[in-house]
């Protein structure tokens, strides 16, 4: 049996203790944080958890990862790459008979070059631990996704994630200065850290966003920055969401947008900020004089009155509660509601249209009880929009897929991009062509075939 031979070989490579085969040790890999799977697991835990992988391997070194890929090729075994399991689209979840490659043990963090602020982190290092390690030394990645308490470095890079401060500091792709990845049939590719290079398309970016399809990221060189000296919290009340987007465009194009910047529509402001909406919150960071000067210039530019928070206020409240997702999950659960979020982006010219189209698309599905939207990341050329929808948990199977399908099509035809930072996972696979076009999708499939000719890693059914 090929699986048995693989398991035997894997035991030789990583040591017997790091090859898991017992039911109790595998059940947890049956789901990640794709809400569809989470709510199914709540309704039928037994059924949902019975779909675990055939085995799981936890390599302890980069060389072991490369050897495991080689063994998977030799024995025709398929691998699902698993990091923190906080992905929200099912990307890390194995199919029946697959083996999970869990990068948890690649969890080191150290300086690669302290002078350059380049940190060397294993793909399995929890982001919270990397950030904590840096903070103790006066540094920061300033990469704060809401999943900071859960995600691991490999998963964050593999999904091309963004964080709450990404308006000011950019997404994870701007932090990645080099990386190592094990590629089937190639071995361990070592892309050394560099501030920037012009040597063909940068290989580190080939894997940034590769979602376990092209290889296994084993090590990442991330650019850290000294902790900011000052932080100024602000909030204001734009007249409408559309008006708020207009203000954001002016600010972003003049590089005056707050480093952390969020605009909530009428529906979401009361839930997220506890104020009537629409509402905007922001944080300006950096040397105190610079932060204040940027804030003042921004306040002059927009017509809303910008309030600086000295004590308590919507921005401070939001900052305090920003990782506490369980309070609202539990509240909804107890009144029989399930929810999910869909993020997408749009150039300024179509941002308002995309917002309206996505909202109407979600609301057009029967069983949807709530739709709220906020804008979370701002660029000179456009914006990321983030929609939360809640619905009757008892109607999960009919409502969930219908909302996603209508929203994906509405966003695309209104001129938006189907994803801003969660990636494609399983949920968005059917919509790839909407974003990339026929030829783009064919090219991606060709790249996939070139890097993983036997298809031992997750693939796309194009």
């Amino acid at each position: 049996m090929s699986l048995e031979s693989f398991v035997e070989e894997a035991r030789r490579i990583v040591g017997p203790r790091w090859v898991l085969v017992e039911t109790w040790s595998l059940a947890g890999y049956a789901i990640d944080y794709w809400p569809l799977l989470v709510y199914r697991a709540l309704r039928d835990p037994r059924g949902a958890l019975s779909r675990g992988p055939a085995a799981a391997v936890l390599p302890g070194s980069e060389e072991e990862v490369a050897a495991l890929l080689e063994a998977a090729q030799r024995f025709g075994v398929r691998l699902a790459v698993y990091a923190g399991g906080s992905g929200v689209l099912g990307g890390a979840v194995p199919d029946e008979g697959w083996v999970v490659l869990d990068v948890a043990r690649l969890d080191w963090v150290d300086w690669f070059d302290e002078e350059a602020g380049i940190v060397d982190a294993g793909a399995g290092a929890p982001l919270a631990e990397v950030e904590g390690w840096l903070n103790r030394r006066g540094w920061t990645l300033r990469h704060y996704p809401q999943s900071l308490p859960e995600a691991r470095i490999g998963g964050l890079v593999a999904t091309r994630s963004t964080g709450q401060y990404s308006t000011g500091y950019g997404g994870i792709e701007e932090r990645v200065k080099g990386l190592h990845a094990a590629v089937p049939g190639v071995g361990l590719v070592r892309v050394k850290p560099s501030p920037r290079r012009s040597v063909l398309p940068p290989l580190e970016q080939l894997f940034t966003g590769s979602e376990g399809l092209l290889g296994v990221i084993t090590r990442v060189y991330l650019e850290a920055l000294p902790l900011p000296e000052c932080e100024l919290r602000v909030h204001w009340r734009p007249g409408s969401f559309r008006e708020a987007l207009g203000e954001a465009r002016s600010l972003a194009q003049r590089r005056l947008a707050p480093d952390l910047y969020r605009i909530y529509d009428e529906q979401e402001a009361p839930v997220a900020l506890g104020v009537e909406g629409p509402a905007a919150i922001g944080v300006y960071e950096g040397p105190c004089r610079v932060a204040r000067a940027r804030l003042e210039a921004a306040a002059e530019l927009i017509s809303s009155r910008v309030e600086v928070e000295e004590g308590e206020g919507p921005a401070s409240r939001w900052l305090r509660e920003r990782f506490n997702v369980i309070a609202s999950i539990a509240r909804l659960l107890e009144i029989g509601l399930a929810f999910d979020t869909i993020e997408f982006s749009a150039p300024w010219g179509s941002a308002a249209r995309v917002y309206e189209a996505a909202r109407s698309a979600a609301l057009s599905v029967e069983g949807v009880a709530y739709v709220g939207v906020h804008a979370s990341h701002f660029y000179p050329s456009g914006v990321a929009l983030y929609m939360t929808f809640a619905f009757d948990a008892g109607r999960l199977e009919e409502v969930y897929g219908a909302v996603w399908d209508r929203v994906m099509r509405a966003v695309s035809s209104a001129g938006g991009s189907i994803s801003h930072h969660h990636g494609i996972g399983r949920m968005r696979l059917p919509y790839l062509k909407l974003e990339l076009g026929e030829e783009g999708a064919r090219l991606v499939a060709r790249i996939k075939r070139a890097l993983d000719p036997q298809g031992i890693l997750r693939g796309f059914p194009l």
Partner: protein
Amino acid sequence: MESTAGDPERALRICAACPGICQYSCPVYRGSNLRSAAPHVLARIALAALQGSPGLGEALNLCVHCGECVRACPIHNDLPGALMAARARLAGEAGVVRVEARPLGGSGEPLVVASPIEPPGRAIDALSGWRLYWLPTREAVRAYWWGSRVEAQAPEGSTIIVEDLDFPREALEGLGRILYSPEALDALGLQWRPPGDSLIHVPCKAPEELRSRLRGLGEALEACSGAGGPLGLGMPEYAAQAASRLAREAGGRLVVTPCAWAALALRASGARACTFLETLWGCRG
């Protein structure tokens, strides 16, 4: 939100719905890297096991009841309490486990060591002036975490030294004077000094009085070993893996601990570790 205390199934469901905000605070998950040990994953497994999924119940040994997840949880959801109830349900009818102190030798007032580790012959000399007994806690602790009640027996008027922080304290009430080992060293008039270059382990399950006592004894290593609860006995190899993080922190120095489960797991993970009492009879890890 209303507290989940007293409603284990609700606590499990809420935890199962969470992405795992607390997960890296769990010493077992962080030390062993076993996905099933991550608290929110364990909650999902417990729900499936309660529905009769075969082969999953064993995972419930993975919680050591240190309470780190409850502290890290923004809503302080009591997962350990819920797992305790889940184990009791899976075990079926609650039993009673009786353990009795076994005489080891010596003469004088009865002195009982409650620990999973049997004191060796040398202990009788080290504690001369006492009649030494061993109260073996191993099986009782396992049964306790799986829903049984524990009853202990010891000679009347015993002084009982507890080196098992998982053994239910209530089983000892009324049997005599109960002391944790660092307190006992004073109470028995032993001039104890920490062995050179040692670290004093302050385990997560130590009650507050014991913690402050431990901190005063030397350089403290305050962390959960990830080895107690049902894990130490149910899955000793994973307890050792869980303890390997603490072992790394100790960096080759001798760890002196009031918790025998921590000592066992630390030693199994290659670290130097002794309980307080063991240092009396020459243990150097």
